[in-house]
C-alpha cells in the first residue's frame, strides 16, 4: 500500500509541476518527493522481507540499494537546482519531472520481486535518463541520448530474451510472472544449458545498465554531456539497478551446477572491464570520461568479487554501496569544476587547488577515496576481494587484477594531480578568469566522504547483518 502511495505521490508531483509552471513550486515538490523517498526507505526497513504489494518485496539487497538512492536524493536535487538555475521554466520542469521519474523507476526496480517487473522498470529508467541526458539540447547531447537509448534498448531486449528463456525452462506460460522465491523452488528441475544461455543473455543485456563490458560504451558517452547531477546517478544508483538484476539471477542459479560457469563468466567480464578502463584512462582527455571509466573499473571489480565467491559476495555489495557515495560526490562536484575551469578537457585545466581551494581539496579527497586508499571504506572491500581471490587460489586473476589496478591508480593520480597543482598545458584562448563557485556547495560531498571514511574503521551491525542477509542464499 505504501509503495502504491509513493508511486501515486510521484505522479501527483509530476502533474502538479507540469500544470503549475513555477520554479519555486518545482523546487518544493522535488524536496517533498525526496522526503517521501526517504520515508519509503525507512518504512521498508521497518517491514523487512514483507511484500507491500504483489510483485514487490522489501528485500535486504533492494533496501540497501534504495538507502543509497534515498541518501543521494537530496544532494542530487540540490545540485540539480544549481545546474538548472538559468534554464527556462519549461526545461527546468522537464529536468525535475524526469529526475523524479528516474528515482521512482529505480525504486521500483530495487523492490521488484519478479524478473519481468524488474525488466519493466529498467526499461523505464532508459526513457527518463534519455530526457535528462538531452537537457542541454546540444548536438553532442542528442548524439549521446541516441546512443544511450538505442544501445540500452537493444541490450535490454536481449536481457528480456534471457528472462523469457526462464519460461521455456519450465514450460509455463506464466513463468515470466513468477516471483524470485517461486523460481528458486523450480530451478533445480531446469536444464543447465538453458540456465547458461539465460544467464549469458541477462549478463550481456543488463551490462548496459551496470556499465560492464561489453556494453560499457553507452554510459561513457552519456557522461560526457549529461548534467553533473545526472552523471552522479548514472554512475551510481543506475549502475546498481543493473547490478541487482544480474545479482538476482546469479543468486537464483547459484544452487545449480552452472555456478562455476557463472563465476568464470563474471571474472572474465570483470577483467575485460578493468582492462578497457585502464587502457582508456591512460589516454583520457576528458575528466568526466575518465571518471566514467573509473566506474567501469569499479563494476569490473564487483564482477570479479562476485565471481570469486566467499568473502567476495560481501565485498561486492559493500563496494557497490561505497562506490555510490564516493562516485556521486565526484560527479556532483563536476558541475562546480566546469563553472570554475570552463572546461572538462584535461589539457585546458590546471592550478585548480589555487583557483578554488575547497573544490581542489574535495577533488583530492575524492580521488584518494575512489582509489581505495585508507581512510576510504572501499579499501576494506578491495582487501576482501583480494582475500577471496587468494582463498580460491586464482593466481592469474590476482596478478592481472593487481596490475590493471596499478595502471588505473597511475592514470588517475597523474591526471588529477596535474589538474590540481600544475599550469594547464593548453590554456583556454579566451583567457577567461577562473569562474566563481560557492564552497558551501562542497558540504554534501564532504558529508558523503565522511560516511565512507567512518565505514573504513567501523561497519555497524545492522549493515553487516543486512549485507549477510542479502547473500544468505549464495553458496558459502
Amino acid at each position, binding site marked *: 500500500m505504501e509503495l502504491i502511495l509513493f508511486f501515486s505521490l510521484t505522479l501527483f508531483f509530476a502533474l502538479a509541476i507540469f500544470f503549475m509552471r513555477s520554479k519555486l513550486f518545482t523546487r518544493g515538490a522535488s524536496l517533498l518527493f525526496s522526503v517521501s523517498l526517504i520515508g519509503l526507505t525507512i518504512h521498508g526497513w521497518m517491514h523487512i522481507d514483507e511484500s507491500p504489494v504483489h*510483485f514487490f518485496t522489501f528485500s535486504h539487497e533492494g533496501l540497501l540499494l534504495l538507502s543509497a538512492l534515498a541518501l543521494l536524493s537530496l544532494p542530487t536535487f540540490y545540485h540539480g537546482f544549481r545546474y538548472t538555475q538559468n534554464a527556462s521554466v519549461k526545461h527546468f520542469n522537464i529536468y525535475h519531472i524526469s529526475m523524479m521519474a528516474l528515482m521512482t523507476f529505480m525504486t521500483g526496480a530495487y523492490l521488484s520481486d*519478479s524478473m*519481468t*517487473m524488474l*525488466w*519493466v522498470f529498467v*526499461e*523505464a529508467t*532508459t*526513457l527518463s535518463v534519455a530526457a535528462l541526458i538531452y537537457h542541454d539540447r546540444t*548536438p*553532442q547531447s*542528442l*548524439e*549521446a*541520448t*541516441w*546512443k544511450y*537509448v*538505442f544501445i540500452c*534498448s*537493444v541490450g535490454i*531486449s*536481449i536481457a*528480456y*530474451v534471457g528472462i*523469457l*528463456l526462464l*519460461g*521455456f*525452462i*519450465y*514450460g*509455463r*506460460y*506464466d*513463468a*515470466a*510472472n513468477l516471483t524470485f522465491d517461486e523460481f528458486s523452488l523450480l530451478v533445480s528441475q531446469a*536444464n543447465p*544449458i*538453458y540456465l547458461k*544461455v539465460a544467464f549469458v543473455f541477462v549478463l550481456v543485456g543488463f551490462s548496459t545498465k551496470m556499465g560492464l563490458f561489453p556494453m560499457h560504451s553507452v554510459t*561513457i*558517452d552519456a557522461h*560526457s*554531456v549529461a548534467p553533473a547531477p545526472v552523471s552522479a546517478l548514472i554512475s551510481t544508483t543506475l549502475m546498481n539497478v543493473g547490478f541487482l538484476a544480474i545479482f538476482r539471477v546469479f543468486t537464483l542459479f547459484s544452487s545449480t551446477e552452472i555456478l562455476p560457469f557463472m563465476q568464470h563468466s563474471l571474472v572474465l567480464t570483470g577483467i575485460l572491464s578493468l582492462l578497457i578502463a585502464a587502457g*582508456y584512462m591512460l*589516454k*583520457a*582527455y576528458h575528466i568526466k*570520461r575518465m571518471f566514467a571509466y573509473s566506474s567501469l573499473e569499479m563494476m569490473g571489480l564487483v564482477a570479479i568479487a562476485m565471481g570469486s565467491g566467499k568473502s567476495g559476495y560481501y565485498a561486492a555489495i559493500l563496494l557497490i554501496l561505497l562506490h555510490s557515495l564516493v562516485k556521486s560526490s565526484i560527479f556532483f562536484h563536476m558541475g562546480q569544476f566546469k563553472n570554475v575551469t570552463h572546461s572538462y578537457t584535461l589539457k585546458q585545466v590546471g592550478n585548480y587547488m589555487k583557483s578554488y581551494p575547497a573544490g581542489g581539496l574535495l577533488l583530492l579527497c575524492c580521488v584518494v577515496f575512489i582509489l581505495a586508499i585508507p581512510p576510504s571504506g572501499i579499501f576494506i572491500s578491495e582487501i576482501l576481494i583480494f582475500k577471496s581471490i587468494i582463498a580460491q587460489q586464482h593466481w592469474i586473476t590476482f596478478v592481472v587484477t593487481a596490475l590493471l589496478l596499478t595502471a588505473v591508480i597511475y592514470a588517475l593520480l597523474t591526471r588529477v594531480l596535474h589538474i590540481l597543482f600544475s599550469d594547464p598545458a593548453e590554456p583556454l584562448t579566451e583567457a577567461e578568469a577562473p569562474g566563481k563557485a560557492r564552497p558551501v556547495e562542497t558540504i554534501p560531498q564532504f558529508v558523503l566522504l565522511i560516511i565512507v571514511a567512518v565505514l573504513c574503521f567501523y561497519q555497524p551491525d545492522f549493515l553487516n547483518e543486512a549485507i549477510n542477509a542479502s547473500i544468505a542464499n549464495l553458496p558459502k
Partner: protein
Amino acid sequence: MIEFLIVAFAATLIYLSAAQRFRVFARFMGVQGVLIFGIAFLELNEMATGNLILVVSETLVFKGIVIPFMLFYIIRRTQVFKVHAQATPSFYILLLNAISLIVSVIIAYTLQNPFINIVFMTVALYALLSGLIIIVTHKLIISHLIGFLIIENAVFLFTIALGNEMPALINIAMLLDIFVGVLIMGFFGLRLNPDTGELTQLKD
C-alpha cells in the same frame, strides 16, 4: 497454418537482409507486423478480451500500421532512399544471415524441450540475430532502426512461443518495448543526421 506464418516470417528476414531500398524495408516491417498478428491470434487461443485487444493493438495497429507509416514518413523527410554505399555488400550480409539461420537451428535443437515448438524457437533466434546483423553491417540510422524493430519482433515471437495465453505483465512489457521503439523512431529518426558516420563527436 501457424507454421506456414512462421516460415513466411523467416522468409521476410531473408529478403530484408538482401534489400537495398528503405521503402522495401518499411513494407516488410508492415508484413512482419501482420504475420506476427496472425501467429499471435492463432497461437494465443485462450486469451481474455482485454488481452486480445492489447495484442491486436501491439501487432496489427503498431507493428502492422503505425511503424511502417512512420518509416515511410522518415524516408520522405530525410530523403534517404537506399542503404549507405559503404554498407557491407548484400552478398556478405546474406551469407552472414544464412550462417545465423544455421546457428539458430543448432541452438534451437540443442535447447529442445517438450514445452516449446522448435520452429518457433529457431525463427525467434534467427530474427534476433538478423536484427543484430543489420545493425552491425549497415551505416545509416534508419537501417539501425530497422534492426532494432526486427529484434523487437523477435522478442515478441519468443513471448508468443511461451504458451497459449499472454499474461498481463508480459503485455505491459511488450507495450513499453513498442513505446520505446516508436519514441526512438519519432524522435531520433528525424533529428539526427542519417549517416551514423557523422555521430563521432563523442569518442576517445
